[in-house]
């Protein structure tokens, strides 16, 4: 495992710093760091209790003391957007982590061992890939019921196909490399070849695509939230906030605009930074080849 972590460390030392080298990368990366910090310290920085209702003060426009206004129940929109970052980011990041780990394990095993196992895995993966992500997620939530946990697993399953395919493609490509043959010539066991040589060399594109998928995951989480399938009240999530705001769209548009802007800006930042990472790692071909 040390080699995997050193590969990731190497990624951090060189590629991430290079991704920060361009002004686009700096802006996007800086915003993301700020966002993560905001999400982590949300309970301490929100100006009001995100769940506290103040019916007398409902649908107040942006101003003082409610900088971004209040919703129909008089809850502070800014506090809810900040706290929503916590929900959105943690759900998406957890889901994608699950997706990446399981996808890597499946893809690596399929690519390395081949044969019937590979065909079975790839058939299922291709099948799930032929459905829209949102449909797979919806079906899954419908089966196990709404809530944050099921949203997380639904997103994880929706993106599983992507990482399985990508990892498998990397492993298949690497298997033909001379240094893998050389390792076989030394009498190394398959587990050693897989864990010490194949996975560390395959991991960079998977991590970058995973990073990009966190953006998609946020959108999917917001969509599920919009349908009322994600975070349950009073827990704020960007999607659920937009959903509850639709009723007063013309009366108090800020209730729906600010979480929408939060989703859009976050996803743009994730994509821009992901693109910079791809450029810094010079792996565009490897990602497309999957």
């Amino acid at each position, binding site marked *: 495992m040390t080699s995997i972590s050193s590969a990731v460390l190497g990624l951090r030392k060189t590629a991430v710093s290079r991704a920060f080298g361009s002004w686009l990368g700096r802006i996007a990366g800086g915003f993301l760091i700020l966002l993560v910090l905001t999400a982590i310290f949300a309970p301490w920085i929100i100006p009001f209790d995100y769940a506290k209702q103040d019916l007398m003060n409902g649908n107040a426009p942006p101003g003082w003391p409610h900088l971004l206004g209040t919703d129909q129940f008089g809850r502070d929109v800014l506090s809810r957007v900040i706290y929503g970052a916590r929900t959105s980011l943690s759900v998406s990041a957890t889901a994608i982590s699950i997706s990446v780990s399981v996808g890597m394990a499946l893809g690596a095993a399929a690519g390395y061992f081949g044969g019937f196992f590979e065909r079975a895995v790839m058939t299922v993966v291709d099948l799930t890939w032929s459905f829209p992500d949102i449909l797979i997620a919806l079906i899954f939530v419908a089966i196990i019921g709404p809530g944050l946990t099921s949203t997380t697993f639904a997103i994880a399953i929706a993106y599983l196909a992507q990482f399985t395919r990508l990892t498998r493609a990397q492993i298949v490509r690497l298997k033909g490399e*001379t240094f893998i043959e050389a390792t076989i010539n030394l009498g190394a066991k398959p587990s050693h070849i897989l864990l010490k040589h194949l996975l560390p060399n395959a991991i960079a594109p998977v991590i970058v695509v995973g990073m990009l998928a966190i953006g998609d995951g946020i959108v999917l989480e917001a969509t599920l939230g919009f349908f009322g399938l994600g975070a349950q009240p009073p827990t704020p999530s960007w999607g659920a906030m937009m959903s509850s705001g639709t009723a007063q769209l013309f009366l108090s548009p800020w209730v729906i605009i600010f979480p929408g802007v939060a989703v859009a800006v976050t996803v743009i930042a994730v994509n821009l930074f992901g693109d910079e990472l791809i450029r810094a790692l010079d792996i565009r071909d490897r990602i497309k080849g999957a």
Partner: protein
Amino acid sequence: MLEVRDLEVAFGPIAPLSGVSFSLAKGETLGIVGESGSGKSLTAMSIMGLLPLSGGRITAGSIIFDGQELTTLAEPVYRKLRGGRLGLITQNPMTSLDPLQKIGPQVDVVAKLHLGMTSREARARTIEILGTLRIPEPKTICDRYPHQMSGGMKQRIVIAMALAADPDVLVADEPTTALDVTVQAQIIRLLDDLVKKRDLALVLITHDMSVVAQTCDKVVVMYAGRAIEHGPVEDIFHAPQHPYTQALIGCIPKGLSEDEHLTGIPGTVPTVVNYPKGCAFHPRCKAAQAICSTDRPGFVTKGQSAAACHFAGAVQ
């Protein structure tokens, strides 16, 4: 130490290698020479038990290593020999090392795997072996990545990996092809030294006749998937029996005069799907007769060497 008898290899319906035999004792170097596509590397792969990985299999003959039949060995058992008592050096030092791992751990793993050493013992051994291979500052080298090293250095690392488990037989498949000439000479001298110091049995696969002349005790000449002449290196060089061997030796530049013309062998090596009938060399042979295109010649022994030619020794 190592004996190969009538080895035949098939990939599905085609048989790119047949009738290869040789034997090798400790402290001896055997050269396998031939043009590209003559089956040299396949012979190496057969000895290392690597054919199943690329879809080939041994259909006839035997490979006996230290009294043990290798052709019927199960893969997990073979894996213990491979890299352990059987070492292999491949053609591409540039790409034979994992680009993400430091040199140290990549070499260490061999001793850990085959000699059951701990990390610390393995590292000590790595440093010792790198030292014997005349790699300067072995300790610092262990912390380098492959991309920080030259081709000759990488080839030494690859040799170190092959030697780390103290093998009895070392198969070197064109160990110098990818290197420039000055480094080639160093590597060949190094291998020669190792054979003498460690009492290794070395199978040196090459297409360079001058390398063979410098280092080998015995030679097997291959053409179109068959051994066509074998014997002690002096006999092969001074009195080659087979017209192909004669032509190969004729190709070595003498370097005597400035206006010396390089001679070649006309034609090309047949590919595995169109091996000629009879003697595979007959379309390119200047001494070919009618019988050469119909009957495959058997070995004609002369002294310690033998050549598969209807007119062995008769043509000069």
